[in-house]
């Protein structure tokens, strides 16, 4: 159905931040004075537009909430016509609100956080660029448009990770993120090409169909094709969402400024993979094998991320491990089909709030601690920065699934849905999710205790202090989200709201007291207790102890880099060396030899040009004789 009213100008959502980025980047130093305000204003403007669209959508009947906006015919090649358009439906509007809402808060926070930075304007330009690209990603009505947004957020992520490019570690991290994401993007490209080859179109409406019953072209293809497309899309999702085996870049990405870690590498961009899987649900539903692969990736990542989170002393890296783990939950849920979609998206939104809050809280701590990120140098900060402590604490309670807070509702939902899958796989997946919940409780408590409790371990010259209002107000707003978002979504009618898109019907019911729920609560208490025994009650050494095998492995990101290096990088380098050797000896030898040969021939033939007319005439005569002979011989 065509969009009307404010929805008809949905392109404003993308245009506003894009204009902001353009003005700030092209305007140069002239915009330094007010650049951050413009950037924030554009983001807020997009939020207002998104909110208005949302309100308008609520006015429609559930079946009529899917609206399309045709922008223009992008290109036509042969029979392939690509229309650029936007799709506003409950799924995309949820993302729009998350992106613009959390995004705007982070813009505001950054005004304070980046106040000392000379390049604050450029930072805001990149943030705007990111918001625009992310909105295109979730609003596009076809896979090519989605892919453009997908690459756009990748670019923004690259620019922002390497924002402090004078630091070699930041430059390397940016490059790493870019390279690893290329692997995933390759999957996306092939998937899109395969869809084009199979369906002759890349439009969501035509491939996936409309409404809960779908009936798109995908229903007509074989399971093999659907599985192939599904697995390739999963590869793309793994790259962007830092899922195994493409997880390695996310931890290094913490080199970027903290608001970036909060916005891009926790709340929004890294969840794009989940969006992709949920949006492509009809494909995965036809391909049980691909779905199983999705759940396995999710379960493995949620454990790996949690274990990594346990070993990190760098507060941002611990939170990054946590992000991996939480997205693992979402991917797991997305792989469960319609039963899990709602919880995946609900957890995604709730996570967006509490993880952004946690990251910004970490940023606030670092702000007061001279940008030190080592938690072993913190301790006892509770009284020094009360607001940060309180908001961080709410985020903490939310993420460990403390009853009543955001994470409780959404995570319980995922665990229950995993067990509901039934069979051995259901038990294993549910078990992994439960175990993950316990570890989450442990490592998050570790972060909490090491940072805010225990004795003070900071240096003499560090004077911890609370951050300015411009930073703490967003923290408070996000804390509200940590408190209520999950409950609001799960207990409210979010499931029914999403149902026209993702289907699932009655599967979204939430039962307050279930066996997995009780088990999760018990495990959470155990996790917190162990953490208290190790980090709350005991003294935390300023230098990290040697640690057990598992701790060492967790500190080294479970050897992710080592595996990448030995399996891909080294063989790649050998291959490169081999190619260089071959190029030097073989190709160059051949080329140089050829060149020398041609040059020598040239020198010799040149001598025929004696300058004497008589020899010229002779060669003409001989040539003529040959031509005559050739014609006569051919005829005989």
């Amino acid at each position, binding site marked *: 159905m065509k969009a009307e009213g404010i929805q008809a100008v949905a392109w404003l959502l993308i245009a506003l931040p894009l204009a902001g980025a353009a003005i700030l980047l092209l305007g140069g130093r002239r915009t330094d004075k007010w650049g951050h305000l413009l950037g924030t204003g554009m983001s807020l403007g997009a939020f207002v537009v998104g909110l208005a669209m949302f309100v308008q959508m609520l006015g429609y009947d559930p079946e009529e909430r899917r609206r399309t906006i045709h922008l223009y015919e992008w290109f036509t090649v042969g029979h392939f016509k690509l229309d650029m358009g936007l799709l506003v439906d409950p799924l995309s509007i949820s993302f729009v609100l998350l992106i613009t809402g959390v995004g705007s808060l982070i813009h505001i926070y950054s005004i304070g956080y980046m106040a000392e930075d000379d390049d604050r304007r450029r930072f805001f330009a990149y943030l705007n660029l990111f918001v625009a690209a992310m909105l295109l990603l979730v609003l596009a009505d076809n896979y090519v448009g989605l892919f453009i947004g997908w690459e756009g957020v990748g670019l923004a992520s690259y620019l922002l990770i390497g924002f402090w490019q004078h630091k070699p570690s930041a430059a390397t991290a940016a490059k790493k993120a870019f390279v690893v994401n290329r692997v995933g993007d390759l999957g996306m490209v092939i998937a899109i090409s395969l869809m084009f080859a199979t369906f002759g179109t890349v439009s969501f409406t035509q491939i996936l169909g409309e409404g809960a019953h779908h009936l798109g072209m995908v229903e007509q293809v074989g399971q093999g094709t659907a599985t192939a497309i599904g697995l390739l899309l999963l590869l793309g999702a793994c790259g962007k969402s830092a899922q195994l085996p493409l997880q390695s870049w996310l931890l290094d990405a913490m080199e970027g400024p903290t608001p970036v870690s909060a916005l891009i590498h926790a709340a929004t961009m890294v969840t794009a993979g989940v969006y992709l899987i949920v949006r492509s649900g009809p494909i995965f539903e036809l391909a049980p094998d691909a779905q199983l692969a999705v759940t396995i990736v999710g379960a493995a990542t949620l454990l790996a991320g949690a274990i990594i989170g346990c070993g990190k002393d760098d507060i941002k890296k611990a939170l990054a491990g946590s992000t991996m783990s939480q997205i693992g939950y979402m991917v797991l849920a997305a792989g469960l089909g319609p039963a899990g979609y709602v919880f995946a998206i609900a957890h995604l939104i709730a996570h967006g709030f509490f993880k952004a809050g946690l990251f910004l809280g970490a940023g606030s701590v670092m702000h007061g601690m001279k940008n030190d990120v080592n938690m072993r140098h913190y301790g006892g900060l509770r009284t020094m920065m009360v607001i940060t402590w309180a908001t961080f604490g709410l985020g903490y309670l939310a993420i460990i699934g403390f009853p009543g807070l955001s994470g409780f509702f959404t995570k319980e939902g995922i665990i229950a849905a995993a067990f509901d899958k039934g069979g051995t796989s259901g038990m294993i997946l549910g078990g992994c999710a439960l175990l993950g919940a316990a570890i989450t409780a442990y490592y998050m408590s570790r972060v909490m205790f090491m940072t805010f409790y225990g004795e003070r371990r900071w240096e003499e010259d560090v004077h911890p202090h609370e951050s300015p209002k411009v930073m703490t107000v967003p923290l408070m707003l996000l804390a509200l989200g940590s408190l209520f978002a999950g409950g609001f979504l799960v207990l409210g009618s979010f499931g029914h709201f999403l149902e026209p898109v993702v289907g699932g019907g009655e599967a979204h019911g939430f039962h307050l007291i279930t066996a997995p729920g009780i088990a999760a609560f018990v495990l959470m208490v155990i996790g917190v207790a162990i953490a208290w025994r190790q980090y709350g009650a005991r003294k935390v050494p300023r230098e990290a102890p040697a640690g057990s095998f598992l701790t060492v492995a967790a500190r080294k990101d479970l050897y992710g880099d080592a595996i990448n290096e030995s399996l891909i990088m080294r063989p790649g380098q050998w291959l490169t060396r081999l190619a260089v050797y071959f190029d030097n000896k073989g190709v160059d030898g051949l080329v140089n030899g050829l*060149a020398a040969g*041609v040059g020598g021939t040239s020198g010799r033939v040149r001598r025929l040009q004696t300058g004497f007319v008589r020899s010229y005439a002779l060669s003409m005569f001989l040539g003529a004789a040959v*031509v005559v002979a050739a014609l006569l011989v051919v005829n005989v």
Partner: protein
Amino acid sequence: MSAGVHIIAAPGDIPAPHIEYGQLAPMLIVFGVAVLGVLVEALAGRPWRYRIQVPLAFAGLLAAFVWTIVLAWRHEPFHVAAMGALGVDGPTLFLQGTILVLALVSLLLIAERSAAHFTAQASALPGSEAEQQSMSAGITQTEIFPLMMFAVGGMLMFPASNDLLTMFVALEVLSLPLYLLCGLARRRRLLSQEAAVKYFLLGAFSSAFFLYGAALLYGYAGSVRLSDISAQAGQGAGGETLLLAGIALLSVGLLFKLGAVPFHMWKPDVYQGAPTPITALMASCTLVSAFGALLRVYYVGFETLRWDWRPAMWGVAIITMVVGAVVAITQTDIKRMLAYSSIAHAGFLLTGVVATSRQGLSGTLFYLAAYGFTTIGAFAVVTMVRDAGGEAAHLSRWAGLGRRSPVIAGVFAFFLLAMAGIPLTSGFTGKFAVFSAAVDGGATPLVVVGVLASAIAAFFYVRVIVVMFFSDPEADGPSVVVSPATATAVALGLTVTVVLGVLPQPVLDLAGTAASQMFVR
């Protein structure tokens, strides 16, 4: 006495030929202007001659060009004119138009006064008293204008000739003034005169081949008209040896004019020795004209025999491309290098001729137009780079030109890249057109050789660019003299090279339309 009276008294015996003046007007205008030019030389005072000759020549060429366009515009069915002696048809009009435009651009160079390319007095011995005197008297050789107009007239007639005798006359009309013009260089006059003599001797030699071939063909077919020869050959009337030997010898005469190997020896020497504006005229207009004649002969006269002449032409095309590209590598003189480049391009063009199809014809037409502009532009740049001894033609003198005059060096580099056939230049489009036609015509091996030769050729084009931009300039290096007329010629060459590379479709369509009607018989 009585016999003479009888001839005069019996008008019915020799009917006055029917001449289609309208269709032949471009040629007639050019020839008329040439004759007028001779009269100007005879009647006008010396100070006035240059001032009259230049506008006259421009006006003549322009009028002829406009008339050509009008002829092409009318879309009337073409037929042979002047009692079958000339054929004015689509391809011919395209060729004539191209020749006229290229001649206009060449005229800009020839009329360039500040550079003084031509000797003040051709008869004076080099370095003699007489030469000194005539130079100090500020005499300019204005005979070059009527000479050039005669040559251009011959060039217009050459591809239009529908019988071999007319074609021979046209060949001589275009050649004789060029022999003369070649010897008129102001600097390095001995080299120039040597070039003129060589060109004349070898040209005479090749004319003999042409004439011998024409005679054999007349012996075979009993007619010198191309259509008659074609018809006779179609019947398979016997005397094949006569026919084939005739084709071979005729081809030698034509291949000489376009400088195909092994009839190319004159080209480097003449291109180097001739005054550079004349070299530009020869490298563009003469090439177009000679190819036009070759196309007409092969497409009209010998089309039915293409299985007989194709192998030999394959051989000539291959050896022309390879020798042109290979020998160019070791050249140290810019003009000689461009001469070998022109030989290689003649080879590329021959692949289009060998295709013997409409596509091949239109591709060749396009290539000729594109290459003509590029090569004039390149030679125009050569005239601008000068030192005390005139043009600094040695490659080593061009070292570091890119730093001294980045614009001129950049433009020259662009022409070279166009000749190398880099995409987004007209050279690429042209090569693509003829090569794809050749592939469609079953001449894939020829195209493979062509592409390899292009790769070799790219080497020496790029080498010049490297010398210009990546070596240190000499202390007493040449300077770039920019004058309005030459700069206009360079700008025109550059514009066409760019436009035909980026937006070639209109001209490709034009060549396609011209070729779609084929030659009249």
